[in-house]
C-alpha cells in the first residue's frame, strides 16, 4: 500500500528519525497526547483482533475434532449427546451456492448494463441507488420481507404448505434467494468499478475489428474483469456465510436437514435446516440448545471459512497486480 504523505522510516532519509525525536520534545503536550492516542488505538485494534483470533482458535481447537465434523447433530440436553455439526456445514455451503448462483448473474448483468448501455440515464441512476439501498438495508428487514414473500400461496412450492393452506415460507430456496440480496451489492460494486476502469480504446479496438457490442462484452470485457468478479463474489460469499438474521427467520432452524417433500434433491431444497451461524446462535446460552462447546466449535469452523474467503480475495488481488494487462 503506497500512501502519500507518510513518515515511515522506509521513506525517510537517515538521521531524520533522530531529528523527529528531538523535535517531539518541543511539541505541545496536547499534540503529543494526540500522537500517543493514535498509536494506542492502532495497537489496541491489533491487540483486540489478535486476542479474538487466538481465543477463538484456542476454544475451537479444544472442541473441534473429526468426529464432530462428520456426525449429524442430535437433539439432547447434554453437550456430549448433541452430535456433530455436519448438517450446519452442509447447510452453509448449500446456502452459499444457491445465493451466489442467483446473485452472480443479476449483479454482473446489472453492472454490465449500467456501464455499457446505461440508457435511459434516469433508469441507470435508479438502479444504482436501488442497489445502494439494498447494501444499506438491515438484513433483518430483508429477512422479514422474504418471509412475507415466501409465505404467499404463490410460493407454496418453495417450502411446504400446511393442510389449512398456510404456507410455511421457510426453506433453503427461500433463505438462499433472499440471501442473494446480501451478496448482490458487493459483486455489483466490484464488477462496475472494474468495467469502468477498462480503457475506452480497448472497446474501440474490438468494435474496429467488427465485433458487435455483445461480442465485445463476451470476449473482451468479461475476461478482463473476471478477477474482479471473483473478488466481489468471494466477498459476497463471506457476507452470506456470516449472516445470521436471514437464516434464523427463513431456514426454519431445524437441527438436521429436513426434506420438505419426497422428491430427492429438490426435497432438501424445499426443506428446512440450519447453517453454522444459526447453529452458533441457537447453541449460545441465549438460544434453545445452550451448548457453548458446540457453539465455539461451529464458530471456529465459520471463522476458518471466512478467513479462507478473505485469503482468496487477497490472493486474487495479488495475482491481478502481477499481470495487469488483459490477455
Amino acid at each position, binding site marked *: 500500500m503506497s500512501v*502519500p504523505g507518510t513518515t515511515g522510516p522506509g521513506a525517510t532519509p537517515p538521521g531524520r528519525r533522530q531529528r523527529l525525536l528531538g523535535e517531539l520534545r518541543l511539541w505541545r503536550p496536547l499534540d503529543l497526547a494526540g500522537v500517543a492516542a493514535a498509536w494506542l488505538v*492502532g495497537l489496541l485494534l491489533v491487540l483486540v483482533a489478535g486476542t479474538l483470533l487466538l481465543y477463538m482458535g484456542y476454544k475451537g481447537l479444544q472442541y473441534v475434532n473429526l468426529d464432530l465434523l462428520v456426525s449429524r447433530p442430535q437433539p439432547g440436553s447434554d453437550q456430549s449427546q448433541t452430535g456433530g455439526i455436519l448438517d450446519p456445514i452442509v447447510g452453509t455451503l448449500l446456502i452459499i451456492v444457491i445465493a451466489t448462483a442467483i446473485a452472480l448473474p443479476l449483479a454482473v448483468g446489472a453492472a454490465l*448494463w449500467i456501464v455499457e448501455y446505461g440508457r435511459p440515464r434516469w433508469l441507470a441512476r435508479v438502479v444504482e441507488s436501488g442497489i445502494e439501498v439494498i447494501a*444499506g438495508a438491515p438484513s433483518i428487514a430483508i429477512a422479514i420481507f422474504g418471509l412475507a414473500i415466501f409465505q404467499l400461496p404463490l410460493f407454496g412450492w418453495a417450502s411446504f404448505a400446511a393442510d389449512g393452506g398456510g404456507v410455511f415460507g421457510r426453506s433453503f430456496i427461500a433463505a438462499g434467494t433472499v440471501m442473494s440480496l446480501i451478496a448482490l451489492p458487493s459483486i455489483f460494486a466490484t464488477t462496475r468499478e472494474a468495467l469502468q476502469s477498462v480503457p475506452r480504446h480497448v472497446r474501440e479496438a474490438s468494435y474496429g475489428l467488427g465485433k458487435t457490442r455483445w461480442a465485445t462484452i463476451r470476449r473482451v470485457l468479461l475476461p478482463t474483469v473476471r478477477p474482479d468478479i471473483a473478488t466481489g463474489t468471494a466477498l459476497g460469499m463471506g457476507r452470506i*456465510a456470516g449472516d445470521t438474521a436471514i437464516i434464523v427467520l427463513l431456514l426454519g432452524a431445524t437441527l438436521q436437514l429436513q426434506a420438505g417433500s419426497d422428491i430427492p434433491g429438490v426435497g432438501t431444497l424445499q426443506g428446512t435446516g440450519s447453517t453454522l451461524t444459526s447453529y452458533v446462535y441457537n447453541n449460545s446460552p441465549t438460544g434453545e440448545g445452550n451448548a457453548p462447546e458446540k457453539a465455539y466449535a461451529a464458530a471456529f469452523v465459520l471463522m476458518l471459512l471466512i478467513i479462507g474467503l478473505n485469503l482468496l480475495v487477497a490472493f486474487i488481488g495479488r495475482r491481478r497486480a502481477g499481470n495487469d494487462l488483459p490477455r
Partner: protein
Amino acid sequence: MLRRLRRPLTDRRAEQLLGGTAVAVVLVIVAMIVFIAISAWPSFQHNGLKWFGSGGDVDAELGEMVNAGADPSDEAYRLRAWPLVYATALTTILAVGIGVVVSVLASIFIVELAPPRVRSIVVPVVRLLAAVPSVVYGLIGILVLVPFVNDHLISEGQRESVAYVIPLTGPGLLVSVVLLTLMITPIMIALIVDAMSAVPRGWREGALALGVTQWRATMSVSVKAIRPAIVAAAVLASARALGEAIMLSMVSGSKGFAPQPWDGLIFLFEPLRPLAATIAEQSEGISAPALKASVYAMALVLLVSSLFLSVGGSIIKRRFRVGTAR
C-alpha cells in the same frame, strides 16, 4: 432450440437482457418497501403516532398480541414501542460516537504514523475484524464479556438498588455498545483511510513548510479535508448499527426496558432490546396477525431510517468525490 440459444446474442437482445436484470433488481427493492409497508399498516393504523410513544410495558403488549390469536381485537394492536426505538437510537449513537473518534485516530495511525511494517499488519487486521460474523461477536459477548461484567463490574449494592425494577445480570448497554463499536469501526476505518490517502501530498507539505508540526499538519489539513468522508462513514456505520439484530439479541439482555442515564453507573448495566433484535426474536409468533403487523412496523421503521441514512451518506460521499477531483 439449443443451437439458437448458443448463437451469439444480437445487440438489441443483449441490451434488453442486461437491462432486464437491472430492472429486476429495482423491482425487488420496490416490492420490499411496498410489502413491508402494507404488512405494517394495521399497526400504525391502530396506534397512530403514539406507536413511537412511551407508556405501558412493551414486552407485555407483545405477549398480548400472541395470545390474541388469529382474530385480534382492536385492543390487541396496542403498542408503545418507545423503549425499543430508544434502545436502537441509544446503542447506535453511542457506538457511532465512540467509533468516529476511534476510527479517525486509527486512520491517522495507519496513514500517517505507522511504519510500513506495522501498517502491513494493521491493514489486514482491520479487514479481518470487518469480516468477523456478528454471531461470533455475539458468542464472545455472551460467553466472555457478559460473565465478566456480571462478576467484576456490577456490585451487589448496585444490583440491590434497582432489583425492584430490573434485575442486573450482566447483559446490557455496556456490552452491547462495546461490541457494536467493534463491529462498525472497521467499516469506518476503511472509508476514512481511503479518503485520507487521497488527500494530495502537496497540501500537507504546504502546511509542514509553514513550520507546523506533523501532528498539527495532520489535524488541520488531512483531517479537515476529509470531514465529509468522516461524516459519510459515520452515517453508513449508523445504518449498519441500526440493523444489527443477532448480536444485540444475544448480549443486550433482551428486555423491553429503557435505560435511564440519571441512574448513574448502573445505566451502563441496564438491559435493553433494540428494534432489530425484537424482530429477530418475535418472528416465531408471526402467524398472529397483531404481532405480525407490529413486527413489520418495526421493520418499516428500520428500513426507512436506514434508507435515509444510506442515501444521505452516498450524497455526502459523492459531493466529496467531486470536491477532491478538482
